[in-house]
């Protein structure tokens, strides 16, 4: 095989390797396309997620280049120096090393590392050192085994499992800054299309921010093992237009709905262990261990996203939580069928 032949062959191999690496990435990297996965890290809609993707693609390009070169060298070695059939039985020439060559493959990687490091440091600073503007929405997210508590200190809203935040117009950004706390073990907040993940660690307050530029529902889930039901500690972030968001806040600020037809259910709720863990504002229920139920029916899911919020599921959940989420901290309440119906009817009025 002549030298030209070799290098053509190597070039072709390098090109193939790059294509091999790039096709899947290109397929993943389409912000508009949600069909592939609602949790695709290459479909960002928020500034931090965008900056991370920019860096990621740069790192992928550099590593793909390195892969193409080294992989072609490996294949070349294997093909070219595989023992020929007409071996003369003699050992090949022994080469012990070469200072020049070894210096070259030390210096070039050092240069690549410097470039990668500077690019990375820039993105870290841009995300971690971003100042919080005065009009930012402030949210405190508290991780619990196995659900999320959200508090809006400025808006006097307390809710669970479904985070509502306003869309951020790039011309007039209204980012959301989230303080991350934990009530028990470590958790991690990861909604890939909005931002990378940050852990929620007891005694160690963290923070993160996002400025989503597209309304919609963004999914994610707890990304730090936190116990038995880590898998069903799902995240749902509703990015709403400013108007819808303000409307949602106003609704959440209403006192709990009460009505005569469900007073039996309310009585059972308030005289059993339910109120040890759950709060319904304006009533005797002021537990803090479980989710606040004041506006339970404004949420689309129960059990931290594990099931749709329907009366049937509510009843099933109250009767036997393990049938939906085995190992959750909600106990089976041991209510009779009639009591279950009454409590479910009551819960279904908490709009």
């Amino acid at each position: 095989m002549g030298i030209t032949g070799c290098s053509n062959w190597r070039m072709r191999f390098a090109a193939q390797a790059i294509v091999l690496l790039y096709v899947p990435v290109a397929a993943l990297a389409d912000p508009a396309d949600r069909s592939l996965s609602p949790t695709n890290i290459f479909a960002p809609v928020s500034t931090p997620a965008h900056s991370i993707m920019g860096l990621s693609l740069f790192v992928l390009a550099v590593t793909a280049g390195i892969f193409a070169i080294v992989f072609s060298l490996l294949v070349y070695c294997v093909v070219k120096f595989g023992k020929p059939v007409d071996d003369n039985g003699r050992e090949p020439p022994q080469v012990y090393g070469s200072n020049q060559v070894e210096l070259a493959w030390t210096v070039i990687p050092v240069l690549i590392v410097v470039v990668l490091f500077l690019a990375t440091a820039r993105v870290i600073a841009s995300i971690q050192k971003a100042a919080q503007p005065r009009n930012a929405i402030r949210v405190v997210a508290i991780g619990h085994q196995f659900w999320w508590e959200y508090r809006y200190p400025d808006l006097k809203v307390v809710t669970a499992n479904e985070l509502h935040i306003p869309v951020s117009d790039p011309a007039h950004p209204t980012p959301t800054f989230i303080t991350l706390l934990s009530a028990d073990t470590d958790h991690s907040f990861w909604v890939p299309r909005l931002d990378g993940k940050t852990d929620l660690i007891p005694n160690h307050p963290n923070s993160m921010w996002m400025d989503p530029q597209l309304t919609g529902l963004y999914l994610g889930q707890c990304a730090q093992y936190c116990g038995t039901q880590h898998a069903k500690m799902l995240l749902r972030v509703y990015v709403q237009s400013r108007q819808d968001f303000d409307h949602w806040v106003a609704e959440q600020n209403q006192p709990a709905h009460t009505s005569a037809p469900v007073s039996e259910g309310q009585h059972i709720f308030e005289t059993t262990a339910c109120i040890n863990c759950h709060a319904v504002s304006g009533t005797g229920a002021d537990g803090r261990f479980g989710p606040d139920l004041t506006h339970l029916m404004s949420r689309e899911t129960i059990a931290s996203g594990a099931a749709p919020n329907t009366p049937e599921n509510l009843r099933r959940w109250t009767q036997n939580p393990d049938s939906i989420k085995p190992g959750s901290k909600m106990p089976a309440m041991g209510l009779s069928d009639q009591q279950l119906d009454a409590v479910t009817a009551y819960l279904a009025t908490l709009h």
Partner: protein
Amino acid sequence: MATDAITTLRADTASLPFVVKLHEWVTTVDHKRLGILYIVYALVFLMIGGVEAAVMRIQLIRPHNNFVSPEVFNQMFTMHGTTMIFFVVMPMLFGFANYLVPLMIGARDMAFPRLNAFSFWLTAFGGILLYFSFLGANGLYGDGTAPDVGWFAYAPLTSKTFSLGHSTDFWTLSLLVSGFGSIGTAVNIIATIFCMRCPGMTLAKMPLLAWLNLVMAVLVILAVSPLSAAQIMLAVDRYLGGHFFDTQAGGSAVIWMHFFWIFGHPEVYVLVIPAFAFASEIIPVFSRKAIFGYPVMVAATVCIAFISMSVWAHHMFTVGMNANANTFFVLSTMAIAVPTGIKIFNWLATMWGGKIHFKTPMLFCIGFLFQFLIAGLTGIMLSAAPFTWHLGNSYFVVAHFHYVIVGAILFATFGAFYYWFPKMAGKMYNETLGKLHFWLFLIGFHLTFDFMHIPGLLGMPRRIYTYEPGRGWDTLNLIVTIGAFFQAAGILVFVANLLWSYFHGETVGSDPWDAWTLEWSTSSPPPVYNFAITPEVRSRRPLWDLKHPEDPDWKYEYMERS
């Protein structure tokens, strides 16, 4: 005279009854027997850890599967991780170090034979203690069986509040016990290499395997000590009212992470450096060339060991360190790519211009090179902290470190098995079965771990016993599970090959590979005393000098480099 006496003794033992032979193995202080005990022990645990992996893969074959409960799944990934790191890869590599280091430096045994036996049995009982948890960890309240806190056991999940019963205690104590075993072996390897080299073997003439195991042993002492300290602190928290990691009493969960990862990252190099050592012995022999750039290989290894002590917090990019700390750990982590890259290039340069023989050991080493290249590159991706804000704790990371541990370390170790099997058993393995093992395992490995990267990019976190449909993860998880079964088939072929060849393999002489290091100068298997006459060496390849008196290495080793 002495030789005769020992030989007679050996001939006698061959005909002794089973109980006596068993007693000999249990009470042995011979480095070769202890090496084999380590290796067999590791193989048994490899099977157990593999079954645990299979249980997880069956559970994840489709969304909302109910093959096992969340409790069992959580125990499976905890036991799988703990088993594979502490009771498979470490003992396996210690076994090879034990067997090979004295032979390769021309010594008759390790420096401290009884410490050697003690260390092995500590490790062995550590593993048995861990598995006894299935029976014994119920505690007074019947809570918990096997540990279910994950192999890095983040606080405060390990505190009494969240981990009732004794499952966490079994985890803590078993790692503490086996950790002391590891430190004992490390001390022994260091002392052996520094004090027991044969005449003429200066440090600069040591085989690379000995050099790399020396660096590994130093890292073991530096890494396992903080882990043991952390385990003791955890036990104090749980039983003596300490609050090191008890967040409800003002303790710090993050301190545990620092302790664990200042062990955990050097540990990666504890595992991979011996794999480098295998590649550095096998690739030259099957390329029929001296290793390219020996001094640079040594320097790169020492350099990796140093840097590996300063990169631990790249496992903690998501725990909310400040921007400056994150930036520092990005730099230190990326820096480690340079010496690692040098090693890959030097292996390639060793093959360059050689005459490569594609025997099973070499096939596994080529697989090692290919997979270690990819593992290194995904490592560079993960060193970019913002990228890890996505990828950390996702299936991408799981795929990455399995690429390191299976794709690189296990492949190189399989290479080592086939390469040194004739030396250990005195019989040749079956080449056809060896190649079948290689191809089955290669296909299974790539089906499983190539496809495992993608769910990570699509937002799938690790350690979830089930997942929601509609996330684009279903098909990928199915493929990953299918690959696991190819790997299992490969492992069965491997074990069958070892057993069959041990009993029916072709008897080989002392040097079946026409190799160059001292272990090939003695019979296969070597006698108890290794060498009847202490060898004397003048270069890094004493057997090359012997076979090529017209062109010995010692003429060139210091002059050739221009």
